[in-house]
């Protein structure tokens, strides 16, 4: 079954995110005063073939740990969806 994995990589809490801070102050400058915190991360899509959801989740998590995210500075979250073409 073709699956679509969505990977969200975000800066770990407590790790400096100067990009997020800069975006926040720009939003404030535009009048969006309600913005309390901004984190800028990455969104990665992976198309998987012949994948069974449970095994696929484990493999995508392994991909995150080994390459897609750096555990020293980043957290990640994985979502799987059936791919519709």
């Amino acid at each position, binding site marked *: 079954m073709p699956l679509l994995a969505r990977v969200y990589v975000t800066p770990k809490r407590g*790790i*400096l995110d*100067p*990009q997020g801070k*800069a975006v926040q102050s720009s939003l404030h400058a535009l009048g969006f005063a309600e913005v309390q915190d901004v984190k800028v991360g*990455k969104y990665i899509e992976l198309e998987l073939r012949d994948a069974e959801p449970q095994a696929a989740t484990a493999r995508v998590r392994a991909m995150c740990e080994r*390459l*897609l995210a*750096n555990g*020293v*500075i980043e957290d990640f979250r994985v979502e799987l969806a059936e791919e519709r073409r």
Partner: protein
Amino acid sequence: MRWGVVVFPGSLDDRDTLRAAGRVLGDEAVALWHKDRELGGVDCVVLPGGFSYGDYLRCGAMAKCSPIMEAVARHARDGGLVLGICNGFQILCEAGLLPGALVRNRSLSFVCDLVTVRVEATDTFLTQGCRAGEVLELPVKHGEGCYVADEDTLATLERERRVVFRYTDRAGRPTPEANPNGSLANIAGVCSAGRNVVGLMPHPEHAVERLTGGVDGLNLFRSVQAWVTRGRAVPVAAAPG
């Protein structure tokens, strides 16, 4: 001695490093291609500065997957000398050969400047020729040079005296103004637990001749040369298996 400088797609400072070790220092210096699987018997392998793989995903993240990195990790594990400069430092952190990570400069600006760093540890192959507390003037040029690590890691680095260089003013004071990128504890370079892997953001290879930016980097190259040629004991871990 024999130096090996790894060339990744996007490396920039491999030529200057080869020139510093070869032409300036008079040693044998060879380029190693990132697809090589052997290091060709070099005494010290250098991962040079640049933008390997265009800094895709994260600085150094692609390069750590290059075939040669298995040989570099093996060399490091066996007590061999490994030096990472700038992007090379980022690659060593990504590969897990050094702790911590290098993230976007706190200012969000690329910094290209001469900085001063204090030598914090003189018992590494790179700094044995320096005086403790000596202040060196070296160039930096990077967008992602802000050293970060969790509190435990930082405490371990300090306790084991593994911070090798710190950004300071000329008097050796680690002030915020002397810190070009926002690195925690003004850290400019660290070493591995075995002290045979060293990474730093400043560029000693660009400071080896008076005509072009000073000679404070030359002493670091000479340290490595002396370490190897005078038979300074390289800590060799028992080979597994």
